[in-house]
C-alpha cells in the first residue's frame, strides 16, 4: 500500500515456485553471462530474454517502472559520457577542443549501458518473485549463520516501518516551521539531526523491546535450528538450474575456447 512495499508481488508462476536458491544461482550465472557477451546484439538478446522472464513473472507494471527509473538514468549517463572520455578508434565524427568523438566509442558506450541494463534487471526476476522470508531462508540454507540471517530478517521486517517513521518525523518538523531548503551546511546538518535523531531513538527503543522478545522465545537455544517448512529441490528446480548453467557455459566456451565473437 505504501511506497515502502518491497518489490515482491504474490503470484503463482513457475518463477515463484522455483527454489529461491536456484533463483539466486541463476541470477548470478546470468550476471556473469552479461560479462561474457561483448557484442551489442547478443546483449540486447539477453536483455530481451530477461524482460520475457519478467513478463512471465507477472511483475507489476508500476513496480517495474519504479525500479527501472534509476537504472535508465545510469544507462543514459554511461552512453552519453563514454564517447567523451574515449577518443580511440576511427572514424572520427567530431573534434571539440580536447574532446574527440569516434564512432566505435559511441557503440562501446551503448554496449556498456545495455550490459548494465542486463545486470540491473536480472535482479528483478529474483526480487519480484521471492518473498523476503524465502530469501533469508535460502541464504541461511546456503551457509549464512543463523544469527546473521535473523539480523537480516529483522532489518527487512522493520524497513517499511522505519520508512514511515522517517516521513512522519519530517512532516512533524515541517509543521513546527522547519524549512529544509534554507541555510548553509551547518544549519542543514542540525536539521538533519532533528530528523535522524528521533528516528534513531525510535529504533533503539524498538531494539530494546525486540531483544526481550528474542530472549523470551529461546533464541539461540540450539544451533541446528529447524524450520517448519523446509526447502527441498524438485525436478523442475534441477531443470531450471541446468538451463541457467548451460546459458552461461555454452557462450563462455564458444567465446573463450573457440574465439567466436559474440
Amino acid at each position, binding site marked *: 500500500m505504501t511506497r515502502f512495499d518491497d518489490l515482491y508481488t504474490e503470484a503463482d508462476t513457475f518463477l515463484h515456485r522455483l527454489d529461491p536458491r536456484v533463483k539466486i544461482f541463476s541470477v548470478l550465472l546470468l550476471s556473469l553471462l552479461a560479462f561474457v557477451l561483448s557484442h551489442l546484439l547478443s546483449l540486447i538478446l539477453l536483455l530481451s530474454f530477461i524482460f520475457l522472464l519478467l513478463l512471465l513473472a507477472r511483475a507489476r507494471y508500476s513496480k517495474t517502472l519504479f525500479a527501472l527509473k534509476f537504472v535508465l538514468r545510469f544507462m543514459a549517463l554511461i552512453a552519453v559520457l563514454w564517447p567523451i572520455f574515449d577518443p580511440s578508434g576511427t572514424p572520427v565524427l567530431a573534434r571539440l577542443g580536447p574532446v574527440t568523438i569516434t564512432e566505435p566509442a559511441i557503440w562501446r558506450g551503448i554496449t556498456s549501458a545495455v550490459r548494465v541494463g542486463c545486470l540491473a534487471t536480472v535482479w528483478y526476476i529474483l526480487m519480484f518473485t521471492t518473498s523476503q522470508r524465502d530469501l533469508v531462508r535460502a541464504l541461511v540454507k546456503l551457509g549464512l549463520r543463523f544469527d546473521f540471517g535473523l539480523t537480516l530478517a529483522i532489518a527487512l521486517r522493520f524497513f517499511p516501518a522505519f520508512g514511515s517513521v522517517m516521513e512522519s518525523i519530517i512532516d512533524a518538523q*515541517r*509543521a513546527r516551521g522547519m524549512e529544509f531548503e534554507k541555510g548553509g551546511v551547518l544549519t542543514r546538518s542540525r536539521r538533519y539531526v*532533528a530528523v535522524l535523531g528521533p528516528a534513531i531513538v*525510535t529504533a533503539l527503543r524498538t531494539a530494546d523491546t525486540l531483544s526481550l522478545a528474542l530472549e523470551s522465545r529461546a533464541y539461540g537455544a540450539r544451533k541446528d535450528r529447524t524450520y517448519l517448512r523446509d526447502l527441498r529441490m524438485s525436478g523442475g528446480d534441477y531443470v531450471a538450474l541446468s538451463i541457467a548453467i548451460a546459458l552461461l557455459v555454452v557462450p563462455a566456451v564458444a567465446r573463450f575456447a573457440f574465439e567466436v565473437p559474440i
Partner: protein
Amino acid sequence: MTPGGEPGESVVTVDGVSFSYEGGFEALVGVSMRVRRGEYIAIAGGNGSGKTTLAKHINGLLHPSVGRVTTCGMRTDETSVANLARKVGYVFQNPDHQLFCTTVEEEVRFGLENMDFEESESAPKAQAAMELVDIVALRDRPPFTLSLGDRRKVTIASVLAAEPEILVLDEPTTGLDHHDSEHLMSTLRALNRSGRTIVLISHDMRLVAEHVDRAVLMAAGRILVDADVGAVFSDLELLREAKLVAPPITQVAHRLAPLGVSPSTFTPSQLVQQIEVLRGGGG
C-alpha cells in the same frame, strides 16, 4: 485578515477535496467542511478513516489532488508549510516523531526559533506554555527519558508556545491516564474560551461528547455527518457506520428514551438531572 479577527468567520475551508496517497490509495473522497474562528470541533472516525489525512491538509503537509483548502485566508497549495506553521499548531499522533532536543525547554523553544523569535521573546513564551501543561519541573530533563504522558505534554507545550490561532491535536489523550487526560481537556477548554480555534482528532467518544461543540464523523475517507454533538449522538446507527460507539451514558439514555430521557445526554450529571426532573414531574 487580521489575527484575532471576527469570531464566526471561517478560518479553515475544505472544498471538495479528494486525496490519493502515492500508490493510488484514495484516503479522502469529496470532503467539504469548514471551521469557524473560535470553534471547538472534533474529527472522529475509526482507524484508517482518513482523520489524520484530513488534518494534514489544514497546515499544508498534504495538498489535495482535487479541490482546495484555505487556511486563515491562504490557499495551502500556494503557501509554504513554514508559513502556515505560524497560524496552525499541529500536535502529532506520536510524540516521539516530534521530539528531538536534549532538554524539555529547548524542545519547547524550538518552534519559536524556527519562526525567528528573539531570545527575550521566546523565553517567556516557552515558560508560559510549560506552565499551561504543568511541565515546568521537567524543563532540564531530556524529553525521551520522560513517560509517554509527559512526552505528549512536551509536544503540546512546544506547539502552544508559538501561540497559534488554530490548534490541531491528533489523538492527544492516547497514553494519558484519566487525570492527565482530564487536565489536558480542561486546558484545551480554557484555550478555546480565550479565543483559540481547536480541532481535536479522537475516537474517544466520551471526550468528544463532553468537551466538544461540533463533531465531524468520518468513514472510508468520506464525511458521514457534520453536526452539533447533540445531533450526532442521537443517531446510534450513524455511529455504528463510523465504527464508533456512543459513550456509556448516552447508550443508557437511549435505553431510557421510552421513559422520556433525551437521547442526547452525554454526562452523568446530565442524566441524573434528567432523571430528577422526570421523578419530580411524576411524583
